[in-house]
């Protein structure tokens, strides 16, 4: 004879059954039960993700691992990295040093001239703090698009120092080739020279993402994931990411935003992301994570007491984060 309390610890499904786990996808590591933990693009509402972790926690190493795993599954990858890491470069046959190597920013499949000019001018206004000049810039970009060159802007260089600055930056990015259609089909590592102004860095990335957005849209709806974009220092584009996260799922590509601190992003980004990977960090950093997701003390400890190699893995539709012991591929280490 037993009472329920004697057998509950042994027979209650709540004490025996671990959260169900995926059997396929991008392998991230193992959980505390020794089961493989996968990021399965097809079981998530979208594959847009966020990777968080303080400096040295292994964000870039994890993203390189994801690239390698995704590549094996036939998914192409772009990395957009404002810093330029050798370890990334080694993984790619193609790399583009933005502002040194040019890309055609006036060939805009998927966009109408007006739409593209409006969008780009909106972001230029934000990046350069040209508040109130959006419509002027829009008009200039529209002319450039119509003529297929930046020469309409060149005419105003002597008259307006703001336009002059913008023109100087655009001319460092723009060239006749390659076009976005050529770039999109390849695995590419985009990086920057060591000394580059924040404005041109942000402008280049913004243009690149806008071009890709238009191009992928022009290719129509895709059922499977074809491309992932890894965006380092993604907090610089927090606003734009919000609109991308909302829109681009059906166009067959996903965006993984990497940054150090959870507060650097708009909270809505976490609500839209298909998954969030939280790497180790300090106590106050973990407190910020706990403000975003409900996590237990065990889960806090998991990323608090290990400097590297552990992560919490949150997936949309499953409120139970997995405590992951990362199993990073050898080639991903720097």
């Amino acid at each position: 004879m037993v009472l329920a309390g004697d057998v509950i610890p042994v027979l209650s499904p709540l004490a025996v059954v671990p959260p169900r786990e995926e059997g396929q996808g991008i392998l991230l590591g193992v959980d505390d039960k020794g089961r493989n933990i996968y990021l399965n693009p097809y079981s998530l509402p979208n594959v847009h993700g966020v990777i968080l972790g303080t400096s040295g926690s292994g964000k870039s190493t994890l993203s390189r691992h994801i690239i390698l795993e995704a590549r094996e599954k036939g998914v192409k990858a772009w990395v957009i990295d404002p810093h330029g890491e050798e370890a990334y470069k080694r993984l790619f046959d193609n790399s583009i040093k933005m502002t040194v190597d040019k890309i055609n920013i006036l060939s805009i499949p998927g966009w109408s001239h007006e739409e593209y000019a409006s969008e780009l001018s909106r972001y230029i206004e934000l990046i350069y703090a040209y508040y109130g000049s959006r419509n002027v810039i829009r008009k200039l970009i529209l002319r450039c698009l119509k003529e297929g060159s930046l020469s309409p802007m060149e005419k105003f260089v002597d008259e307006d120092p703001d336009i002059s600055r913008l023109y100087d930056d655009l001319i460092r990015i723009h060239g006749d080739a390659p076009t976005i259609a050529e770039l999109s089909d390849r695995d590419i590592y985009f990086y920057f020279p060591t000394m580059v102004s924040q404005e041109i860095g942000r402008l280049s990335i913004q243009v690149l993402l806008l071009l890709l957005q238009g191009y992928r849209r022009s290719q129509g709806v895709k059922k499977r994931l074809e491309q992932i974009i890894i965006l380092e220092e993604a907090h610089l584009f927090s606003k734009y990411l919000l609109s991308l996260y909302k829109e681009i799922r059906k166009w067959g590509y996903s965006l993984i935003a990497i940054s150090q601190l959870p507060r650097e992003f708009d909270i809505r980004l976490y609500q839209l992301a298909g998954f969030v990977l939280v790497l180790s960090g300090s106590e106050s950093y973990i407190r910020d994570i706990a403000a975003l997701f409900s996590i237990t003390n065990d889960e806090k400890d998991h990323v608090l007491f290990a400097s590297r190699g552990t992560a919490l893995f949150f997936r949309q539709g499953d409120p139970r984060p997995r405590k992951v012991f990362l199993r990073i591929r050898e080639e991903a280490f720097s």
Partner: protein
Amino acid sequence: MGKAIIFLMFLIAGFFTRAYSIELSLILLGLSIVVISREIYPYIVHMMHGGLPLNHLECLRKICFSYSGNKPCVYLGFQVLDCRHGCYDLNEKDFWLSSLSFFSTAFTAGGEYIFITVKGEMFIVLKVCEYEGKRIKDELKSMREAFLRGFELLGCSYRVLAGSELKGLLRPPELIEVKTNPVRQLLTLISTILVSGLFPPLVVILALEILALSSGKGIVYKVSIQNGGLKVWGLKKATVTYTYPSLREIYTRARVVYSIVSTIPFMAMRLKPAPWEIAASLDSHAYRVYEMGTALDKLSMLHESQKYFFASRRRWERREPVFLVNGLLIAPKEIRDTMERMGLHFEPDMLALKTLE
């Protein structure tokens, strides 16, 4: 311990009384065997059959059936796939309340429930035995409804097992079929008859052999020796029943089980809701022993009554349902030791395989 002492007392007394009366000596020696007959019975079964006979199990698409004596029994199995929460993210109070409401609602429709855990996967088998086919059907239906209501309350998803899967659980791969050897059975019986002619106390063994033979309908199984280190353990006692564990203690035990459950090769527990009289006997026993203890001024009895009061309080204050339980563990000794610390005392017992019947 008590049994061992009684056995030894009868044995020694049997030898010492031999000089005075042979008959008395033989009776005492016979009694010593009777005292330990329960303990030696599994060995006799093993000697007669070379393993343990279990009922023959036939399976259809979703159910299995067997005969318990002449009574047909039907089995329906479920696998627990996922639960919205678990001891990994609940606090002790929520864990307790969810689990208790599951145990209080899911197992209210009679019948028996076999919980099977195989390397971290959980299966629950509903079993109903009735003479009439219609009653089996009705009872199984109401068991299923109550059970699924409990699942819903617990927030768990499940799938119904196919008949072949269910058979694989009730006759797990750790068990291998053994062919009975009628010649060996006959020779064993004849030799026991001959020896008991010379030494009459062995008539008790003869009776046990006949009992083992008569219970030997079905297929004989033994645990595969290929599974090195695995032993068959039977649940002897829940050592925590007569305590008043806090919710925190129960929760901590659950956390320990959660951390080791994937290493348990096979565990089966058969629960049956205890009839009201048995559940109520906790109270009456507590009162009786207390009254005896105070009357005789015996501290040990007062202490014993206190233990029963604990169990009784759990039943009334925490509304814990009472179950009759059989347990089987096929695992190495380390797992058995951990279960011991969880309050479940297992001992080597081949007969525990009957939990799967």
